[in-house]
């Protein structure tokens, strides 16, 4: 029930693991036979941890790129947080989807959105933070993650780029900690 050194990295890793885990359950990831991909997709997913730069880097169809935006300062969640109270910090995640077709892009975006807003079976808007500094990694007690503002944006609306969809989500990390 305390601040964990590098806990911001652990939020990033926990959310990415959560998305990857559910995509594996749904058949999108970990599928060696392209004929078994869901929704008739024909190209296995490529997972990136970087903003795609189509002009400089190869970008295959069905690429999913997981990136994080700015992390603001921690906010006191209740009076007296300085002495061991509740803190809250928001992380913004972007999941860019570059589908082999408009249908596959929408299918992936729809599934990822439903993972993060807890609509698919086995999913929830709430998630545990994993303390990756432990051996083996285990749930970090006193920390909870929740997802808000899970949105799909389509920044490139031209016909040639309609296969690009972006799922944006705010992950709220609440935890108990003392200052200093």
């Amino acid at each position, binding site marked *: 029930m305390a601040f964990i050194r590098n806990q911001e990295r652990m939020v990033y890793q926990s959310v990415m693991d959560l998305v990857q885990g559910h995509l594996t359950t749904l058949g999108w990831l970990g599928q060696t036979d392209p004929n078994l991909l869901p929704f008739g997709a024909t190209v296995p997913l490529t997972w990136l941890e970087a*903003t795609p730069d189509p002009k400089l880097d190869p970008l295959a169809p069905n690429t999913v790129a997981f990136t994080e935006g700015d992390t603001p300062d921690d906010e006191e969640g209740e009076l007296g947080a300085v002495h061991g109270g509740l803190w809250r910090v928001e992380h913004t995640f972007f999941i860019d989807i570059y589908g082999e077709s408009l249908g596959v892009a929408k299918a992936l975006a729809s599934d990822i959105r439903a993972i993060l807003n807890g609509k698919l079976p086995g999913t929830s808007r709430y998630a545990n933070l994993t303390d990756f500094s432990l051996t083996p990694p285990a749930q970090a007690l006193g920390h909870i993650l929740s997802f808000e503002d899970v949105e799909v944006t389509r920044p490139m609306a031209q016909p040639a780029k309609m296969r690009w969809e972006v799922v944006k989500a705010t992950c709220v990390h609440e935890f108990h900690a003392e200052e200093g």
Partner: protein
Amino acid sequence: MASTPQIPNFDAAAVREGLRLAMQVGLPPDTDDQPLFVMPTTVSGDAVNVLDAAGTPFNPSYRPTRSVPATVRVPCAIEYFDGAGKIESFGLVAPSHVLLTLLDQDFAQVKGFVYVVIGGNKYWFEREFAPLGLVDVGVHQIKCRSDDEG
């Protein structure tokens, strides 16, 4: 193709032959790297499973039948361009595109293509400009956008 010559003794066949030769000179020497026009794939489902316009089923476990697309290789002139960079919420996207120039008879063979593969890179059909003419030889220009594949 114009139905009647506009200039007496204009040898359209010779002009086409010369232009094709010029196009061929500018193409990559390896045939595999030269433009390969890929025609649409036919996606067919059944009476039970619904497909969207792209042929993607709404049933995750259903796989529609996809035909192998026909491919055509014809000579053309290629110009490479970079699109203007545009800042978006997730970063900078500045895809490149190509402008293909084809003669009327060759264009007729590839009309309706979905994408063209040049040197292993895929460029999607984006738009066809208004047709041009060299007397009674038709000239067509098509803009294609990079698929961003390496």
